[in-house]
């Protein structure tokens, strides 16, 4: 036991190993961090053993530092001891029979590695479930679909209650009013039953394994949070797919920023009076690049810019919300968004004014592109994007009345409707 303590105390920790290896190669922290796709600050925390290193990141670090991953990971035992201590610390005192013997964690791990693994995995599973619970709670209180549905239910119930009370308690009622109230009862009860069915179907659509967010939703939450460190624990990126998408996005943004700097973009935006085409002309850069950079940087004149990007199938691949613009859940869209027009007319910018169901107006520039990345015989890839800017109520030009998605859109007479709405007609 004494020997084990001695061994544990003298063993070099993973972060320290990484730091020593980097210094041995005379590499700068910032350079290594950039190559593995994390920030220098995060690498610094890792090197000081203040952040754990996941297997994927460990592989990338080993690659960049030209050393076998096993050699860097030799400190994995310490990480497992730390995980055991964390598991003990996370359990509320009220739920335990007494404090865990923290000083005996190394011995426990050495003697019962299987049980220690079960304990660590169980603690991590509990942490993941807690995170999902928070996510579910957020969804219940903030999900626009649930809020709209709840409002719909309350409206129907209010009308039913008032109308039924009138018929039951108000004595003599003129025949025309009585007929109208009976019709209203019929209409509201039908609306209520349809809303209830839709709500049940929606709740059933939550995946059975409890995974609340899609990777795309994780990336959107990550962007909305200001794109913090991808590997940072407790962040919105909880799945490998979400982290991979975030890394891809980050690499793309960095590459585009290298082509078109923040300073150049801000300078041109200041002279272009809110016109992305003028910005592109001033900078002699492609319009699609300028639109993506405007939505990412949001310089003066484009402070609330949002961006939607879709591929040739119409699937949205990036959604940067603009304030007030009605966005449904990922996977759904309004067929009237000009974004989809741009797919059919690539290389031509389309400017259209849109009106949301709540009256909010938007000025949109949509632009489609085509490419053949595999050469002349390769497939033609089409992509479109729509820059969303606020518009004054008096803005000129025809206005297209759009919505979030048919199911939660109140425009009953819309020519593009593909399924009935659960919301009231307007």
């Amino acid at each position: 036991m004494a020997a084990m303590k001695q061994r544990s105390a003298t063993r070099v920790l993973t972060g320290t190993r990484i730091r020593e290896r980097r210094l041995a190669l005379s590499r700068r922290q910032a350079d290594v961090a950039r190559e593995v796709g994390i920030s220098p600050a995060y690498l610094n925390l890792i090197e000081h053993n203040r952040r754990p290193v996941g297997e994927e990141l460990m592989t990338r670090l080993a690659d960049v530092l030209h050393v076998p991953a096993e050699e860097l990971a030799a400190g994995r035992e310490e990480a497992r001891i730390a995980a055991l201590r964390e598991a003990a610390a996370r359990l509320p005192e009220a739920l335990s029979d007494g404090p865990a013997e923290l000083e005996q964690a190394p011995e426990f791990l050495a003697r019962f590695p299987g049980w220690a693994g079960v304990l660590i995995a169980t603690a991590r599973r509990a942490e993941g479930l807690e995170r999902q619970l928070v996510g579910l709670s957020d969804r219940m209180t903030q999900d626009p679909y649930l809020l709209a549905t709840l409002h719909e239910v309350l409206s129907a119930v209010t009308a039913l209650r008032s109308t039924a009370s009138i018929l039951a308690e108000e004595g003599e009622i003129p025949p025309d009013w009585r007929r109208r109230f009976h019709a209203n009862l019929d209409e509201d009860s039908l609306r209520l039953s349809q809303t209830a069915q839709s709500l049940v179907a929606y709740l059933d659509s939550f995946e059975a394994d409890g995974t609340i967010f899609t990777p795309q939703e994780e990336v959107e939450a990550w962007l909305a949070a200001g794109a913090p460190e991808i590997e940072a624990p407790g962040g919105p990126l909880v799945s490998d797919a979400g982290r991979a998408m975030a890394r891809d996005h980050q690499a793309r943004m960095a590459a585009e920023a290298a082509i078109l700097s923040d300073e150049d973009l801000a300078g041109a935006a200041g002279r272009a009076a809110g016109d992305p085409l003028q910005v592109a002309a001033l900078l002699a850069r492609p319009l699609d690049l300028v639109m993506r950079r405007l939505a990412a940087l949001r310089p003066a004149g484009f402070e609330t810019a949002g961006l939607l990007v879709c591929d040739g199938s119409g699937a949205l691949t990036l959604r940067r919300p603009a304030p007030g613009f009605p966005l449904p859940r990922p996977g759904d869209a309004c067929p009237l968004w000009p974004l989809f027009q741009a797919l059919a007319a690539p290389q031509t910018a389309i400017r259209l004014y849109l009106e949301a169901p709540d009256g909010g107006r938007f000025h949109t520039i949509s632009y489609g592109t085509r490419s053949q990345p595999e050469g002349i015989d390769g497939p033609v890839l089409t992509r479109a994007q729509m820059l969303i800017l606020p518009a004054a109520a008096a803005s000129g030009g025809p206005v297209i009345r759009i919505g979030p998605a048919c199911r939660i859109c109140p425009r009953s007479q819309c020519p593009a409707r593909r399924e009935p709405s659960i919301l009231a007609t307007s």
Partner: protein
Amino acid sequence: MPQELDILMIEDETNIAEAVRFILTREGWRIGLHPEGKGAMQRIRAARPRLVILDLMLPGRSGAEILAELRADTDAGLAATPVLMLTARGQGPAVQPLAEKADALLAKPFSNDDLRRVVRELLA
């Protein structure tokens, strides 16, 4: 200018508006309806009702925005018009600031008796 309306109700749900109009008309009040947030302030200014019944969630413009503009009106008499706000339970933080600006709040679904009682109190 003589007041033609006792009550102006701003509510987009037609069936709720019809039921409320029937109930309050039977009480002897003269009631007018406006079906959306857009243009509501102009209608209030033109009608100068003794009471405004205002739904919180309206298309075009929210009841909260309309209430804020009414209270900030330079016409002190108009700005002081009593307002009964219709809300939904569970709107929590969104409703809290309204409680200070509205004269009464009524949560949906409400009973016809509660509606009559609150309107009588506000128009007394």
